[in-house]
C-alpha cells in the first residue's frame, strides 16, 4: 500500500520528487500542482508495490529499462489538443514563412518542419494538411515533417491516427472527408471516430524525445521551422532557457520557432529575433551569430 498521507506528500518529499523530475525530464511542478502530482504518484506507487516515496524514487532512478519513469511521465503530461488549433500560426506558415524560406532554396531541396511536443499528432497532421491545401509550392520541395513527444503512449496514438469528434471540430467538412476515413467496429463503439489517411500517416516521422536531453535533441539538426506550442509551460525559467538553447542548435540559420500564443521567447532567451508577419509573431535564428 502506498504510504502517502491524506494531505499529500510531505513538503521535503514533494520537493525531492520535483527536483528529480526536473533533472530527468525538464518538467517543472510547483506547489500549485500538488493536487495533480500527489494523486498520480500515489497511483504509481500502488501499481509498483512500494510503500514510501524513497523506494519509488529508487525505482525511478535505478530501473535499468526506465519503464517506470516513462509510465510516470506519460501520466504527468496533459495532451489536450485538436486539429487546426491556433490556426493563425498555421496560416502564417503557409502564407509567409515557407515562401521566405523557399526564396533562397532551389526547387527540389528539402524543408524540415519539427512539431516538438506533438502529443496525439493533431499538430503535425494539421501542418501536413495545411501544406497540401494551402501552400502552392508544396510540390516543388521535399518537405519532411518530424514530430516528437516525451510521452510514449500518446505517440502510439499519434501513429495510429484515430480521432474523435472533439479533435476534429475545427476542421472544415471537406477536409475531413478528404483526409479522414470513418472507423468502424470496436474502435468506434464509444462514439464516432475517424482515421487519418495512410498517405498522411506516412508523411509524419514520430519519435520519442525528451527535449531536456541534449543527446536526444542532437538528432534534430538543420530544422527550418519548429512548432513548440504550449510545451515549455511545463518547464521552469531555467529549463525554458535551456530548451531555447537546444532549439537554437536544432534550427538551420534563418530558421523559425513558433511558440504558443501565451508564450514569449523574449522572456526565455535573447538568441532569437522576433519576426512579425501578418498572421503571427514567430522567432527567428539569425543567419550568423545570435540576436544579442
Amino acid at each position, binding site marked *: 500500500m502506498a504510504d502517502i498521507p491524506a494531505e499529500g506528500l510531505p513538503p521535503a518529499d514533494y520537493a525531492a520528487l520535483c527536483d528529480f523530475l526536473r533533472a530527468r525530464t525538464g518538467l517543472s511542478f510547483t506547489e500549485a500542482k500538488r493536487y495533480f502530482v500527489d494523486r498520480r504518484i500515489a497511483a504509481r506507487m500502488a501499481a509498483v508495490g512500494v510503500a514510501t516515496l524513497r523506494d519509488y524514487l529508487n525505482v525511478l532512478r535505478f530501473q535499468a529499462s526506465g519503464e517506470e519513469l516513462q509510465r510516470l511521465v506519460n501520466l504527468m503530461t496533459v495532451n489536450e489538443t485538436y486539429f487546426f488549433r491556433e490556426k493563425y500560426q498555421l496560416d502564417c506558415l503557409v502564407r509567409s514563412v515557407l515562401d521566405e524560406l523557399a526564396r533562397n532554396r532551389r526547387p527540389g531541396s528539402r524543408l524540415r518542419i519539427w512539431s516538438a511536443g506533438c502529443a496525439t499528432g493533431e499538430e503535425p497532421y494539421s501542418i501536413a494538411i495545411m501544406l497540401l491545401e494551402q501552400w502552392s509550392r508544396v510540390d516543388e520541395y521535399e518537405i519532411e515533417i518530424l514530430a516528437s513527444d516525451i510521452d510514449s503512449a500518446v505517440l502510439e496514438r499519434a501513429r495510429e491516427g484515430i480521432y474523435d469528434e472533439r479533435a476534429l471540430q475545427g476542421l472544415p467538412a471537406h477536409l475531413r472527408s478528404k483526409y479522414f476515413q470513418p472507423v468502424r467496429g470496436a474502435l468506434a463503439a464509444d462514439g464516432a471516430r475517424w482515421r487519418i489517411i495512410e498517405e498522411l500517416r506516412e508523411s509524419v516521422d514520430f519519435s520519442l524525445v525528451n527535449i531536456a536531453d541534449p543527446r536526444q535533441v542532437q538528432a534534430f539538426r538543420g530544422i527550418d521551422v519548429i512548432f513548440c506550442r504550449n510545451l515549455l509551460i511545463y518547464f521552469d525559467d*531555467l529549463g525554458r532557457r535551456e530548451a531555447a538553447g537546444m532549439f537554437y542548435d536544432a534550427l538551420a540559420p534563418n530558421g523559425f520557432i513558433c511558440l504558443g500564443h501565451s508564450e514569449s521567447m523574449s522572456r526565455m532567451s535573447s538568441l532569437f529575433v522576433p519576426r512579425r508577419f501578418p498572421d503571427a509573431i514567430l522567432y527567428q535564428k539569425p543567419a550568423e551569430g545570435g540576436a544579442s
Partner: protein
Amino acid sequence: MGLVRKKPGTGIAVPHVDDHGMGASVGTADALAGLGDADPAVRRQAAHALGQAGDPGPAAIAALAGRIEGDGDPGVREAVLTALARIASPAAAAALVPFLDREDAALRNAVLESLQQMPAGVAAPALLPLLDHSDPDLRIFAVQGLGGLVHPDRAAWLAAVMEHDADVNVGLAAVEALAEAGSPEALSSLERLARRFPGDPFVAFAVDTARSSFRGG
C-alpha cells in the same frame, strides 16, 4: 516531391538513453576540450554537457567563465551562462559576479538573469557583498539581482538599502524591486527614504507609487 513519406526502418535516429540521465555520456574532460573547438556548435554542446554534470569543478567553471567574453558566438555565450546557472554552485555564482561591471548591457542583464535562476541561497551570498561596493551602479545591479530572488530576507535587504545607501538611485532601485513584489512590511523604510531625500521630486513620486501598490490602491 511534396511531403516526404517515410519508409520502414528510416526516419530520424534518436539515441535511446538507457540511464534516462542527461549529459552523462560526455565526460568533463571531453567537454572541457570541446569548449575550445573551432565549431561553435561543438562549444555549445560542451557547455550544455558541463551544465548537466552537477558540479564539474573549478577548472570547468573557470573555463566556462572564460568563454563569456572570450567567445564571439552569442549562442556559445548563452549556453555558457545557462550552464553556470544550472551548475548553481557558490563558485559558479562567484564566477558570474565580475561581469556585472561590464559596459555591455546585454551581457550584464544575461549575467543577472543567470544569477536569479540559481537557488536564492546560492545567488544571494554572491550578490550581497556588492551592496557595499563603492560603485553605485554595481550596488544597483546587486539590488536588482537580490530583488528578483525568492528569499525570506529579501525585503530586509532592500529595506536596509533604502535606509542607508547614500546614493538616491540605489535607493530608488530598491523601491522599484519592492514595489514589484509588494512588500508592505517595508513601508517604514520607504517613508524613511522619502525623508532622507526630501527635495527630490522623483523620490516622492516613486515612494508614493510604491506606497499605493503596498496598500492595494
